[in-house]
C-alpha cells in the first residue's frame, strides 16, 4: 500500500464528503460506492448523501464542463460514478420519503439516437429530487403525448443533437397547442445545436444549455407554478 493512499473510512464526515467530490471529479466509481456506504453506515440520511456528496460533487463537474475545464469523456466518467452511488441510494430514498420537487418526462426526439446529454439531465434531475420518466431515444409526438397523459408530469424535456432533428421539437409543441395541452406543462429543450433563440421560436418555456441549467430552470419554473397556484 502506498504511504499516501487515502483510507476512506478513516476520514471525518467533512473530509469524506470533500474526498467524494474529488472522486466524482476523477470518475472513481468504486470509491464513490464505498464512500456512499460509509456515510450510510454513519447514519447519514440517503437524501443528505445524495445532495451533499453526490449532487454537490457533480455540480462542480458541471461548472467545469461549462467553463471548458472538463470535457465530455471526463463528465461521462463522473456521471458513471454518480450513477453507481445513486443506484445504492435510490431504493433507500424511496423508503425514507425524500422531498419531491416535481415530475418530468424526458426523451430524445424522433429520428435522433443521441442520449448522452439527455441521460445527464435525467440523472441530475433525479438527484435534485424530481421524479423522472425517461422515454429514451427516437420519440414520436405520439409517444410523448401518451407519456404525458399517463404520467401527468409537471415538465416535458426534449433533447436533440442534430440540426435535422431539432425542428421536431416544434412538431411536439404545436401538437400540444392544437390539443389545448400546452399550458399544462413546462417545456424545456436542450441539445448541442440548440440555442435560446431556437427555444423561443418553437414556443418552449426555456432552452437549457446543460444539465445544471436544466435543474435550476426546472426548480425556478416549479416555484413559479406553486406560487401561481398559491396566488
Amino acid at each position, binding site marked *: 500500500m502506498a504511504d499516501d493512499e487515502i483510507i476512506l473510512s478513516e476520514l471525518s464526515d467533512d473530509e469524506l464528503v470533500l474526498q467524494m467530490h474529488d472522486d466524482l471529479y476523477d470518475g472513481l466509481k468504486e470509491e464513490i460506492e464505498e464512500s456512499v456506504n460509509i456515510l450510510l453506515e454513519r447514519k447519514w440520511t440517503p437524501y443528505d448523501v445524495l445532495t451533499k456528496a453526490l449532487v454537490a460533487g457533480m455540480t462542480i463537474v458541471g461548472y467545469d464542463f461549462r467553463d471548458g475545464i472538463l*470535457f*465530455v*469523456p*471526463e463528465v*461521462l*466518467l463522473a456521471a*458513471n460514478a454518480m450513477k453507481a452511488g445513486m443506484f445504492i441510494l435510490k431504493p433507500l430514498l424511496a423508503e425514507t420519503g425524500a422531498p419531491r420537487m416535481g415530475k418530468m418526462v424526458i426523451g430524445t426526439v424522433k*429520428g*435522433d*439516437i*443521441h*442520449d*448522452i446529454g439527455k441521460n445527464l439531465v435525467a440523472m441530475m434531475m433525479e438527484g435534485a429530487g424530481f421524479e423522472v420518466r425517461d422515454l429514451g*431515444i*427516437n420519440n414520436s409526438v405520439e409517444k410523448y403525448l401518451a407519456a404525458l397523459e399517463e404520467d401527468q408530469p409537471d415538465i416535458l424535456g426534449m433533447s436533440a443533437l*442534430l*440540426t*435535422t*432533428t*431539432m425542428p421536431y421539437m416544434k412538431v411536439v409543441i404545436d401538437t400540444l397547442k392544437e390539443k389545448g395541452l400546452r399550458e399544462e406543462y413546462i417545456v424545456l429543450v436542450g441539445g*448541442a*445545436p*440548440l*440555442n435560446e433563440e*431556437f427555444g423561443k421560436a418553437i414556443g418552449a418555456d426555456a432552452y437549457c444549455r446543460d444539465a445544471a441549467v436544466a435543474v435550476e430552470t426546472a426548480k425556478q419554473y416549479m416555484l413559479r407554478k406553486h406560487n401561481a397556484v398559491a396566488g
Partner: protein
Amino acid sequence: MIPDDRSLTERGLPLEAHQGRVLLLACGALAHEILTLKRMNGWDHLDLTCLPANLHLWPDRIPAAVEAAVLEHRDAYAQVFVVYADCGTGGLLLQKCKDLGVEMVEGPHCYSFFEGNDAFAKLADDEFSAFYLTDFLVRQFDAFVWRPMGLDRHPELRDMYFGNYTKLVYQAQTNDAGLDAKAEDCARRLGLAYERRFTGYGDLATTLARL
C-alpha cells in the same frame, strides 16, 4: 502544395496567392476534395483558404471564425463563398452568412451534401442510426473521433457513445482500397456493422460549378 491532414485539422489552409475572382472559405476537412474538383474542372477562378477542420469539435466557434475570415478577405474578391454546411451550428452560421451578405453550401453537414441533400433526406428515416465517415474523417478518425471522445484513455465509454448506433457508413469520395480497409477497421473499433457507399463529391461539385 496541399498540407497534410494534421495541418488541415489544426491550422487549416492559408491563402497562398490571389489569382481568382471568387474565394472559397472552406472547412479544412474539404480541402482535398475542393482542390481535386478545381484541378479536374479547371476552375482557376476559384481560390481556396480553409479554417481548421477541428473547429467541428466546437461548432459554436464556427460562425465567429467564418466571420473573421470573410472580413479579412472580402475586399480582395468579387465574391466570398463559404464552403460549410450548417455543421451543428443550429442555423447560426446561415444567419451569420446572411448578415455578412455571403452565400454558403446548403444542407445540414457534409455527409448530407456528399450524398446529395435530397438523397440524404430520403435516407433519414431508415438510416438515422448510422454513423458517417468521409474520406477525410477516415484518415483522421483518431484525431476527430477516438481521441476527442477519450476512447484512447477510456475504451469503456465506447458503448455510451455508440450503443444506439447500428452501423458505420463510409461515404467514399474516392475509390481507395486502403481507405476502405481503414474505414472497416474504424467500424470494428466502434463495434458497428460496416457499409461502404461511393458518393463522389455530390452537391459539393454542383454547388461549386455554379460559382
